[in-house]
């Protein structure tokens, strides 16, 4: 069953305006939060078991507590650069409930005592940008932002920064570089952003969904939030389901929800006459699951990890038997080749190399030893770079080639070049 | 040092006669069947060596007649006789980049070891079948590009087996 904690009022037309949001109890939580101690809020988020919804799944409260205890200015950055192929949840959140995000951000900023925050939105989301802009204006007008918020003595300024569409700017340090006006390239860690982030100052970067989820946690209490979902993956998560299903879209379910239920019950199953072949559970960078693995899969961090995949950003891409895995891998590899920032050698050269090999296979020029080569290259790309883009390219490559080896071998041996495939790639 | 065991004194006449016998045998053979004779009447007659004979150097050329040589100096570095001298310069075409403005081989110092040929990464220098280097006193024994690449008997130059396109594909 869907559990609408965040998306409860999304169908109301005026929910994106401040009036509509307040009618549904908006900004009440902010008042509640401003009466608490910042430390208390951090503990609360820690206790709720909320984990980063952007992909890595790092406990949010713990991340906040890494900030050094000093008087340096701190920054809160909202990562709305939703670039993971298959993910479209943040966009919906920003377009349907901008104030939910803003409220969550003000509470989070209060918790970490930051007086300046930015929402980094990818440039392609023109609607989201204008809606958030409008919402910010309203919030400033009503005194939810600016000096002395709701007479609590807490000041906070919030701005939008529009990205130029690079996938890598969704990585937190890449985003910080971009925000600083530099080329969007991830920075070396250590120092971590919590110590030296935006403008070399302590910085917290959180996903849109994470920040929005702070609102129900503060409103209902940590225990109530923790009760949802599984032991170690608490709360609800919005999943963006796409691919070969009857009703693709965003679905909010408690973590731990079975994958097959998601596909069959909520999304109306596969198109008639098709059979499930594979499923990518966490955006294009997550390793693919075979149909058998899908049966066992539950949508939470641990279960998918056990299956050798990951929850990622919650983008479920359903693949049925009408698709060629070579084709799909080629598209994924092309994406990572195009999006590698070019800083670290293994990623810069490896993504291009993988892309070429897979394209060669697709174009009927593959060799059998290429499959081993793909695995070797991917193996040596993983964990060798500054950010995780290299892993993100390597993991699907390895999983596709190992789990669907026969399909690749057939492809190479039959040497088939269908005009369809060629067109898609070109 | 090689030690030759000399025959005992009393027997040395026998090998001498044996030697004389052989000499006269060959003399008679040559007198009566001149076709089978092992020697040549040089310079009227020339011996024809195999195609792999390492004689005088040839600088190969590209299709357009320019030198294949990239002036990498590997031949000069490898030359045990130190007889190759190259001066490199920047070429107007960025795909060529470097080329020799002078390439000189002091043929009298050359020991015809073939290391230059071996060292060349682009098949720019070969050792051709010519072997007559003799000339009169005062002749130029320092061969320059004009002689090495475009001498008359090369008939417009020897083309390198390395194709331009292939070369660029391989990145050389």
């Amino acid at each position: 069953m869907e559990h609408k904690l965040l998306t409860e009022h999304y169908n109301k037309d005026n929910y994106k305006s401040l009036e509509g949001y307040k009618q549904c109890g908006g900004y009440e939580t902010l008042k509640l939060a401003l009466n608490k101690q910042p430390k208390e809020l951090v503990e609360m988020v820690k206790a709720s078991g909320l984990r980063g919804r952007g992909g890595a799944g790092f406990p949010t409260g713990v991340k906040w507590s890494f900030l050094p205890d000093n008087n340096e200015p701190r920054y809160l950055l909202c990562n709305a650069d939703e670039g993971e192929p298959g993910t479209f949840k943040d966009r919906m959140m920003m377009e349907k409930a901008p104030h939910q995000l803003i409220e969550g951000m003000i509470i989070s900023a209060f918790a970490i005592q930051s007086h300046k925050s930015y929402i980094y939105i990818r440039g392609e989301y023109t609607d989201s940008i204008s809606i958030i802009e409008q919402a910010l204006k309203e919030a400033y007008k009503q005194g939810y932002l600016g000096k002395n918020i709701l007479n609590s003595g807490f000041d906070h300024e919030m701005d939008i920064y529009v990205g130029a569409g690079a996938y890598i700017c969704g990585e937190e340090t890449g985003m910080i570089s971009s925000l600083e006006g530099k080329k969007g390239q991830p920075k070396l860690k250590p120092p971590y952003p919590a110590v030296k982030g935006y403008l070399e100052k302590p910085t917290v970067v959180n996903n849109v969904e994470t920040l929005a989820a702070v609102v129900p946690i503060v409103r209902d209490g940590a225990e109530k939030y923790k009760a949802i979902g599984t032991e170690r993956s608490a709360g609800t998560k919005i999943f963006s389901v796409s691919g070969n299903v009857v009703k693709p879209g965003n679905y909010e379910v408690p973590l731990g929800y079975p994958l097959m239920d998601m596909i069959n019950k909520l999304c109306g199953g596969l198109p008639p006459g098709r059979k499930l072949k594979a499923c990518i559970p966490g955006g294009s960078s997550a390793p693919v699951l075979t149909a058998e693995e899908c049966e066992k899969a539950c949508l939470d961090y641990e279960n998918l990890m056990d299956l050798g995949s990951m929850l990622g950003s919650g983008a479920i891409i359903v693949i049925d038997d009408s698709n060629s895995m070579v084709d799909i891998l080629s598209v994924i590899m092309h994406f990572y080749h195009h999006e590698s920032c070019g800083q670290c050698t293994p990623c810069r050269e490896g993504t291009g190399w993988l892309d070429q090999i897979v394209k060669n296979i697709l174009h009927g020029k593959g060799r059998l030893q290429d499959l081993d080569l793909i695995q070797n290259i991917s193996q040596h790309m993983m964990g060798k770079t500054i950010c995780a883009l290299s892993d993100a390219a390597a993991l699907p490559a390895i999983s596709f080639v190992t789990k669907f080896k026969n399909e690749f071998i057939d492809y190479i041996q039959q040497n088939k070049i269908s005009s369809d495939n060629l067109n898609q790639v070109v | 040092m090689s030690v030759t065991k000399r025959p005992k004194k009393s027997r040395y006449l026998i090998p001498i006669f044996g030697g004389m016998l052989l000499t006269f045998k060959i003399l008679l053979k040559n007198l009566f069947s001149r076709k089978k004779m092992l020697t040549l009447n040089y310079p009227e007659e020339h011996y024809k060596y195999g195609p792999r004979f390492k004689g005088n150097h040839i600088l190969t050329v590209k299709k357009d007649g320019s030198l294949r040589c990239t002036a990498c100096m590997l031949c000069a570095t490898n030359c045990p006789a130190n007889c190759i001298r190259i001066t490199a310069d920047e070429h107007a075409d960025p795909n060529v980049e470097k080329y020799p403005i002078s390439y000189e081989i002091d043929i009298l110092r050359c020991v015809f070891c073939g290391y230059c040929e071996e060292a060349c990464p682009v098949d720019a220098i070969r050792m051709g079948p010519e072997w007559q280097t003799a000339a009169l006193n005062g002749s130029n024994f320092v061969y320059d590009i004009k002689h090495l690449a475009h001498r008359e008997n090369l008939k417009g130059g020897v083309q390198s087996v390395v194709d331009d396109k292939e070369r660029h594909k391989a990145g050389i």
Partner: protein
Amino acid sequence: MKKMIKCTINNYPVEVEEGTTIIQAFKKLEQEIAHYCWHPGLSIAGVCRLCMVEIEGNNKLQIACNTVVQDGMVITNQSQKVKDTVRWGLEFHLINHPLDCPICDQAGECVLQEQYMKFGAYQPLMSEDKVKKRKVVDLGSKIVLDTERCILCARCTRFTDEISKTKELGIFNRGDRSEIGIFKNKPLENDYALNTVDICPVGALTSKKFRFQQRVWYLKKAPSVCTGCSTGCNIDVYYNEEGLWRIRPRHNSSINQYWMCDKGRETFKHVNPSGRLKSSFRHTAEQTEKMTTFQALQTLKLDSKKIGLVLTGSYTCEEYDAFLDFFQLHSIYHWKNNPKNFEDYDNFLIRGDKNPNTKGLLESINKRQLKLEDCTQLEQNISHLDLLIVCAPENHKLYPCLEEKINLFLKSKELVWISPHSHTLLQKPINTVWTIPSKTYFEKTGTFINHHGTRQKIKAVASIVDSARSLEEIIHILKTGQTDLTQIASIRDKMKTNYFMEQKGSL
């Protein structure tokens, strides 16, 4: 004093200062470690991913350049895991590298070549097409860029960002299409630009002046001190039988770190045999007489004459000492390259005083409590002098006032011009002019004192012009009348066989 901590590197225990990175500890222990982007004089980029090490208790390999040594750390880069990673790292570096070593100027001193020989895979796996990029890109009057050879270690961009602070270079585009480049109409022309060529580990950046001149394996290098200005940067001079070819900076943390200016790199040309004064001459209005330096010094009458001395800052301390001891009682004039900007400084390396040893000259003068007059004083006094001895600058190019001053000197009754170079004005004089060849910094041993007062020794590498004599040797001849300089221990050590006379036999 920083706290010292212990760690183990490849089974060797080592003690390092707190805050040292692993790669620095490796360098300290002289253990081999592959790396491209790390440079001790620049910030850490951590992009080549070659300096991987295995730290005990850490499953994931770490880069040595950005990991700080902690107490009790056990580090190795000899494990199979690290070796595989480095091998693959090199493979990744090379898949799009054009491998045009034959025409690449860096070949022979290319770090990519060196490290591939040490750590490489030797079995290239890449059979796909390489990415094509721009070749022979003009970056200005000094440097040529080859973007295909570039391995994007970002050393050069970091140099222009951090050291020269001119920010001309940047990495454009992304992924394997990344290229180093400059902005439109903003060529790489700063005074320190050629350092980027030095730090480029591959042949992507090459100096226009040195390009294709020599293969580096034909060159030998000798340590020396730059004579281009009074900063006294430490340098390596690269030379072979045909002459000097280039100068590169040598690390000295208290003077020039890893860098030097582009003007200093030009200071080898005046050392080369062409254009040097090869023997002594006596020029008069009627005739020119060629003689050996010994003959010239013998014929030169110094007794009971009123002598003026003109000194420049391009000689060694030992030479000044010998010279001033001999000529104590005469008036001494200091010839500066350009009195107006003599004290200039660009706050990094370049100084307006274009002499390596002005401090040394002043020290020798002060030691003897002599009076050093400015060259402008000479104009009034020149008519009273019988003989003017000019210890002229070694590198005439650094003296913009050269001709003006020579015209002044020629007004004296008799002029002795001691310099590695002559000048056309000196060859048709009204009065008598002696030209005596002197040695350059490459040929003599001695001490320079730089602007900060640091004493630096230079050593004779080879003699280039046989007849050239240092001031010390000239004074010795004047004093003793002996030609055999090998009799004196201090000079004998400095004599070297003439390396440059050796020529290949020709018919």
